[in-house]
């Protein structure tokens, strides 16, 4: 960790200076990138460190967002309650999903997480009287935590603080004995069982922690766009965050954050040119799988070690 300290300090300095360097449009794009970086890192804890590939991660992201949106718009509830409530309910949903999905492994796990997440989407889509259905809920005003976060600059700093703290927490988790146990489980469940670890409890905990951070990211996302619609829960979201993780590099935490930045910037760029973003995204999936299966971080490492050998 000490080795990276200068890099971390420089990175923090750059992030702090961004509002002074970027025009408003790109600043709000940066906010979006930070939010999705957190979302992707939360999924990486599950895929990269625990070996459980969830295809329904948008459920926690979306629920975190919907709870905030519903409480603020429909309930006129204070942000001091709405914001934590979003995270807590997303965490609770994570616990429920974990209990069901951890009965199964492999492909069944993929299908169950995807199917359960679609149920949540179905509720948000179908329960028009509460959620506004397809039209969504507009008018989610940005919170005031001691200071108003309505303008882009202060909201950016708020997101930076939240994502920074979460990233620090996630790095601490994967470096802790608990994190090492997760990696052991990823490599061999049976061996960890034989060593006396409660494998189920570890996986359950990883799932719940992961959904909590996803919920936080979702809440931030809805505050950022001031709007929530079933889109945040859709399987396309789950798929998008999955490709961020893989494209960046599974099991590196930093990689998925970079993957998030690449995908968001690409989406922004492509969308300004053509309507065919989904097609391009699909091609990104295929190309990544064929040519960069270990992600950008993996490519970098391969290149780096090859150069060193010469």
């Amino acid at each position: 960790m000490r080795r990276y300290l200068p890099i971390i300090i420089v990175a923090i300095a750059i992030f702090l200076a961004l509002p002074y360097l970027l025009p408003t449009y790109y600043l709000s794009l940066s906010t979006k990138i930070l939010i999705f970086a957190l979302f992707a890192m939360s999924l990486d804890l599950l895929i990269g460190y625990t070996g459980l590939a969830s295809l329904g991660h948008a459920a926690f992201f979306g629920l975190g967002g919907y709870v905030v949106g519903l409480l603020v718009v429909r309930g006129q509830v204070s942000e001091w309650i709405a914001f934590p409530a979003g995270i807590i309910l997303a965490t609770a949903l994570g616990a429920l999903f974990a209990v069901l999905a951890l009965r199964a492994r492999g492909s069944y796990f993929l299908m169950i997480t995807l199917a359960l997440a679609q149920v949540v989407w179905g509720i948000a889509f179908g329960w028009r009287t509460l959620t506004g259905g397809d039209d969504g809920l507009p008018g989610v005003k940005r919170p005031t935590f001691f200071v108003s976060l309505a303008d882009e600059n202060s909201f950016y700093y708020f997101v930076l603080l939240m994502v920074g703290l979460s990233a620090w927490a996630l790095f601490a988790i994967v470096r802790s004995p608990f994190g090492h146990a997760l990696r052991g489980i990823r490599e061999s469940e049976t061996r960890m069982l034989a060593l006396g670890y409660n494998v189920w409890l570890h996986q359950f905990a990883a799932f719940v922690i992961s959904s909590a951070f996803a919920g936080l990211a979702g809440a931030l996302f809805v505050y950022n766009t001031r709007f929530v619609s079933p889109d945040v829960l859709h399987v396309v979201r789950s798929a998008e965050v999955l490709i961020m993780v893989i494209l960046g590099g599974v099991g590196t935490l930093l990689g998925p954050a970079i993957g998030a930045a690449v995908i968001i910037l690409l989406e922004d760029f492509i969308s300004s040119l053509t309507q065919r973003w989904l097609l391009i995204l699909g091609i990104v999936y295929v190309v990544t799988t064929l040519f960069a299966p270990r992600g950008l971080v993996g490519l970098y490492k391969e290149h780096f070690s090859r150069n060193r050998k010469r």
Partner: protein
Amino acid sequence: MIWVIHTLNGVSFGILLFLLAAGLSLIYGLMKILNLTHGSYYLVGAYIGSTVIATTGSFILALIIAPLVVAVLGAVMERFFLRRFHLDELPQTLLTFGFLFIFADLSLWIWGGDPIMLPKPAMFSRSIDIGGLGYPTYRLLLIGVGLLVALILWWFQERTRVGAMLRAGVDDAEIARAMGIDVSLLFTLVFAVGALLAALGGVLGGPIIGAGPGTDFDVMLLAFVVVIIGGLGSLRGALVGGLVVGLLDNFGKIFFPEFALFTIFVPMAVILSFRPTGLFGRG
């Protein structure tokens, strides 16, 4: 008598789900690939079917051409892409997701964003009388065709040489290969057949549930529930699971219209708690 009608509706929808789930299940059974593109085969099948009907006016022709085209798409996906990642779950998931998006966007590009309904074939556009109520003969045709397909698949699997190879491959692909069975060809064949069945479902289901953007996700989800309940890798599971989900969905929509999805998912969760690999699955 209304209950007979509701039951028939549920059964015909269940048969449609069987067509989808059978391919999904066979592909998984042999190759352990969870094919997320399976709903797209349905969608593309329905769209191609609509184009064939619009140009030739023949439902039968649509029923032949659309599944064959989609079968080729499936075979290409297996042969040139999925094959490289045999038994590697994450890349397979990504690839099939990628193709899902590609097919979805290309379909949107070619056929536009408005949902379509396929016209029923003229011979089966009428209704017959069931206890004083009219019932569309098309749904009865659907049930008949579905059961026929189930029978053919069963015969193929249990009574033919290729079927025996297939069963050997499902049990142990490695040993099957060592015994001189061309497992590689079998993989492509099964993928093509799976895609063909899904596209057949698309054409047959076109006059009932139609097709449009998002249908691919919807039917994929239902097919997943079918195989989660019935068990992956088992044709019997696909048929029983399909009928169970078809009936649950139909009666769910009658009794709890706002929360119809729950009537499918609560039983799924219950079955999952007792049999994590489904009713007929083998883990």
